């Protein structure tokens, strides 16, 4: 009997002490879409740095998975808890497609003017996400770009354009590989680049206005892609393309630049594999830091993003350690870096290449049309 009483007393004491400790310590919930490297970045690099500057705050980083699927999960979670007084995501990192939809649904707070680094972002990608106006609601975490990786041991003179690639593949069947459209964004990006290369009015796809009939003009373009596909290897996923390059099974394939450099520095891609951004251009995209409208710790969330988009963190974390292109203006980041680290990022793909051949993804409705037309005509 006495033992039970002691047990109850202990439980009661525990129950009473819990809320007290919870009030003192704040947990900042950071939820990110994207590959494991995104979670690593937040958990191992940015989180500890922020905790050091803000005693009593714990940063909890959670990943929701790669690609638009990961952003979709964040979108659906916020949508589901819309009626709650406070939402349990303080900072989210999402892709462009979800950002446009979430701004439209009123799920995101307009915060970038409130933070000191807001004025360091002047890029078009910070205002326009696949045709949606997201200005003020987002801060780019980084920019990433797709390019063609090629093995110099197998290809000495890589094709510089989509047309040249088409000819090369005809002469070298099954030596080029990409991951279709269902296995990750590097394949999607290659297909979008194909449409850009062959479409008479690329600008309209990117800037609008949207015309549902445009997709009819892609029929011959996609027929050529179907013929092209007969001579290529379809790889299982973004990582699948890199794996096949590593094993020498393919000589060329589209990859994300950051993923490529990270794999190469980990020794998972031979040093003889290089990058080329082919003309007329391939898409790239940023990922955005956003704050949900009813984030429980909105002020802290803004502080977190201000740190994440400061020139120092953009230089050390984004460029140097994770091989992404900076999210804020490069002019602000460059002075923070030594020449070697800066130029490492631009050896294969030069700033001029990026300026002329780095394209955004198309407007969301055109984007969907491209994917669905591919499903209908190419597969």
């Amino acid at each position: 009997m006495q033992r039970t009483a002691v047990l109850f007393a202990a439980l009661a004491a525990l129950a009473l002490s819990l809320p007290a400790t919870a009030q003192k310590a704040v947990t900042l919930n950071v939820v990110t879409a994207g590959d494991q490297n995104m979670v690593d970045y937040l958990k191992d690099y940015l989180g500890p740095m922020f905790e050091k500057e803000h005693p009593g705050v714990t940063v909890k980083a959670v990943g929701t998975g790669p690609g638009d699927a990961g952003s979709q999960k964040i979108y659906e979670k916020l949508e589901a808890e819309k009626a709650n007084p406070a939402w349990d995501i303080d900072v989210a990192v999402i892709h462009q497609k979800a950002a446009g939809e979430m701004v439209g649904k009123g799920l995101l707070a307009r915060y970038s003017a409130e933070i000191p680094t807001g004025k360091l972002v002047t890029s078009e990608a910070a205002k326009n996400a696949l045709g949606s106006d997201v200005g003020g609601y987002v801060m780019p975490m980084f920019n990433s770009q797709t390019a063609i990786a090629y093995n110099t041991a197998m290809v000495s003179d890589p094709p510089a354009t989509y047309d040249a690639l088409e000819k090369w593949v005809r002469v070298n069947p099954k030596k080029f590989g990409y991951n279709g459209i269902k296995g990750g964004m590097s394949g999607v990006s290659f297909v979008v680049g194909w449409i850009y290369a062959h479409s008479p009015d690329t600008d309209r796809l990117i800037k609008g206005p949207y015309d549902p009939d445009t997709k009819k003009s892609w029929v011959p373009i996609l027929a050529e892609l179907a013929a092209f596909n007969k001579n290529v290897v379809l790889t299982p996923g973004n990582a699948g393309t890199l794996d096949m390059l590593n094993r020498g099974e393919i000589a060329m394939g589209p990859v994300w630049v950051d993923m490529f450099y990270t794999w190469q520095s980990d020794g998972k891609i031979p040093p003889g594999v290089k990058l080329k951004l082919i003309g007329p251009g391939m898409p790239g995209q940023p990922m955005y830091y956003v704050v949900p409208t009813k984030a429980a710790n909105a002020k802290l969330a803004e502080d977190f993003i201000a740190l994440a988009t400061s020139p120092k963190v953009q230089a050390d974390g984004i460029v140097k350690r994770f091989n992404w292109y900076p999210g804020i203006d490069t002019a602000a980041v460059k002075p923070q870096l030594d020449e070697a680290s800066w130029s490492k990022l631009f050896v294969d793909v030069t700033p001029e290449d990026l300026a002329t051949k780095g394209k955004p993804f198309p407007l969301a409705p055109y984007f969907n049309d491209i994917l669905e037309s591919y499903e209908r005509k190419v597969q």
Partner: protein
Amino acid sequence: MRAERSNLGDCRLGILLLVAPALAMVLALFVYPLGMSLVSAFTAKDGKPTLENFAKAFALYGLDIVFTLVIVTVSTVLIGLLTAAIGGYLVLGAHPVAVAVLKSLYRWPLFIPFIVAAQCMRTFLAKNGIMNNTLAALGLVDVGSLSGLLDWRGIIVTFVWKETPFVALLVSGAMAALDRATIEAAANLGAGGLRILVEIILPQVAGVMLVGLVLAFVTMLSVLSVPIMISGGSPTMITVDMAFRVNSYSDYGVANALGFVSYAMAGLAAWVYLRRSVAHGSPL
């Protein structure tokens, strides 16, 4: 008399209370989402009832539906054959060491998740993967002339590797429980191992094997990780298409229409399973 009735009433209430938690779980976690998904499959974006989702699902993914059915059926047949072989050897094997080794080895894949199995197969079955390189190192083949198995064949290999132990576990248990007199009688009359397996053992465990295969069939039908990680090409399995509809277009209608097709396939298997359970009154 009255007391008896009240006891009966108490008893019924008791049974209801006992069943309630399980029933609530089934209703909340299975029946409700299933109903929602069915409704969504027949609802257009504007909320009106429609068959559009099905039209689109069949137009875009008709080939994938057939492909899914073929892949899962072929895998199920192969699992059946392998299971019979494994179970048969465990019962009839003459070499005790070989039987012991097989007994301890065959269950291992059971404890490995599909996603891990798929990741292993990616490096094992690739063109310059472990399998081809080992064969080449043994001087059996020339890697240059080989192709990788990272396509529909890889999906089947992974499914069979992963699901065989589960069915084999059920079947070998049933085989071990058989009356050995029938086997010994056949052996005494001069029947060989294969003949004993096919004519004496398998007919007696056919029911258990069927149930095991039905469960394997339904499990394989629902796997997303294996087709998405092994095969980049098309056609692909409809789980990949469902994920793609949701993730790329936020289109739950067509995804649920494909889900409906998947239920239909699983439902057919469930019908076989239930018919057998009812006929034999056994939970298996």
